[in-house]
């Protein structure tokens, strides 16, 4: 069978997720019949209004939440629980308050590949490398409560990347950053993802964002969701050439994609405000 070649890295099929409030029994349908195949090495961005179930999808792929109905697979095998092969950057960072910047970034290195087989000196070097990547040099010994929101976000990003998982699941990873830092880290993210490497060596990435231009700049495909209940409204293939740099933002096709996505979510956004 040559299915293995065409088999998606991640597969969601007919995924439905309902939350039931324990006391009232009130049911919230967060996801309704979501189907999405993601290939090895693909960079997929998910955009959609607040509450449409983006974080829920991420939690399900991470194995932290089980779908109410539907199939969730990685490499053709059902996802049964969380594992260090799928790294998550949480929307609220989930930093350990009792760990310093360094401690947080190195937190997972003793457990998942590639840190597990490293010596302590190699781990320290790796931590230093990622501290530098997110420009937190000088703040290594600070605790999360001593950091600004944007700094905390960068610690969470550095922690995820230092762990070096196969699959990157990022929930609005750059949302709290200033525009300049954001653009720099977008480029860094593409580099770490493996933009110049062949597809087999890239890290399969699911990236949630509210920033349409960010989605177009980064993604191979953009999934546009709608809410109440959360559904996949449309999927756009962003066939802009890679490697991409800042000049791509001036490309007329770039604007065209952004307009298209905006058109898809505008109605809902207007409804939500009204």
């Amino acid at each position: 069978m040559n299915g293995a070649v065409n088999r998606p890295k991640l597969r969601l099929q007919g995924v439905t997720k309902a939350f039931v409030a324990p006391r009232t029994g009130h049911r919230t349908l967060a996801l309704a019949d979501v189907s999405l195949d993601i290939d090895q090495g693909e960079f997929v961005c998910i955009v959609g209004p607040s509450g449409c179930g983006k974080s829920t999808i991420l939690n399900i792929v991470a194995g932290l939440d089980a779908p109410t109905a539907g199939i969730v697979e990685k490499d053709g095998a059902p996802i049964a629980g969380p594992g260090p092969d799928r790294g998550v950057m949480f929307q609220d960072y989930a930093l350990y308050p009792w760990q310093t910047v360094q401690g947080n970034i190195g937190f997972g290195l003793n457990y998942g590949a590639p840190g597990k087989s490293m010596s302590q000196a190699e781990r320290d070097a790796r931590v230093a490398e990622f501290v530098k990547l997110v420009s937190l040099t000088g703040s290594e010994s600070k605790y999360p409560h001593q950091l600004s929101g944007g700094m905390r976000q960068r610690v969470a990003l550095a922690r995820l990347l230092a762990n070096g998982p196969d699959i990157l699941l990022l929930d609005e990873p750059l949302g709290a950053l200033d525009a300049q830092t954001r653009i720099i880290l977008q480029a860094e993210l593409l580099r770490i993802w493996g933009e110049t490497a062949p597809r087999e060596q890239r890290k399969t990435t699911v990236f949630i964002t509210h920033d349409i231009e960010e989605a177009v700049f980064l993604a191979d495909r953009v999934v546009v969701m709608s809410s109440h209940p959360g559904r996949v409204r449309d999927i756009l293939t962003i066939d802009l050439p890679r490697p991409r740099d800042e000049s791509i933002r001036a490309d007329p096709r770039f604007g065209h994609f952004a307009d298209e996505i905006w058109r898809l979510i505008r109605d809902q956004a207007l409804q939500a405000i009204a």
Partner: protein
Amino acid sequence: MTVAAQSFSSRPIAAVARGVALPLVLLLVWQAWASTLPANTRAPSPAQVARAFETLAIGGGLVGATLQSLGRVMLGFLIALVLGVSLGVLMGSSRRVSRNLDPIVEGFRPIAPMAILPIAILWFGAGTPAALSIVAYAAFFPLLLNTIHGVSRVDRKLLQAARTMGLPLHARILRVVLPAALPSIMLGARLAMGVAWTAIIAAELAVGAKSGGGSSGGLGQMMFVFYAYSIDLNNIVVCMIVVGVVALLIDRLFRVAERRLMPWRI
């Protein structure tokens, strides 16, 4: 608030002076009152207590008795710490375990440490093990309940993040649950240390009474002997003050330890 706190820490001498002023005034009032009493009174006075302290401390067995009680408090506290924290982690993280054990815990909790004394003496005799078991029993509950409280409130996201990083269960307990619950556990430890002292004095008093002032040792037994054989209130007050001062010192040590162990809490 913060301004006051700052001036406090920046001028430690002033802080100490403020802490000492009130006790000093009370001592003076006490001495003034005592000097109005007839010479043959049994009522203690600061001057007499000071003299009694001197005789007891130098060759009177006060140091040995204090160390013995302190040793029992420490050992009993350690037993309670190990049992209370491990059971607390178990009950705090598993609803099923806590549902099953909660009735037992809550059933025992209102039983005063002294109420288990008869059983303790029957089982262990009138020496250190009986006193230890009572101290451990008394200190166990604050540690258990505060650990449960701390553990059950650990941010779920932090545990989820640990699982996505591949931490196995024991690492999640050691590196996430315990540090997250540490503030609660430390609070429980301070409360436990307080009740450990009340329990040890009561236990030594009672065991001393049971054995006719014989074999139990410790500050509590010393107090019992003064009470039963000489009715010397000055000596008893010395013992009380020693307990108070040692307990106060231990509590200060706890605060230092808290700052060391939890630097992230400022």
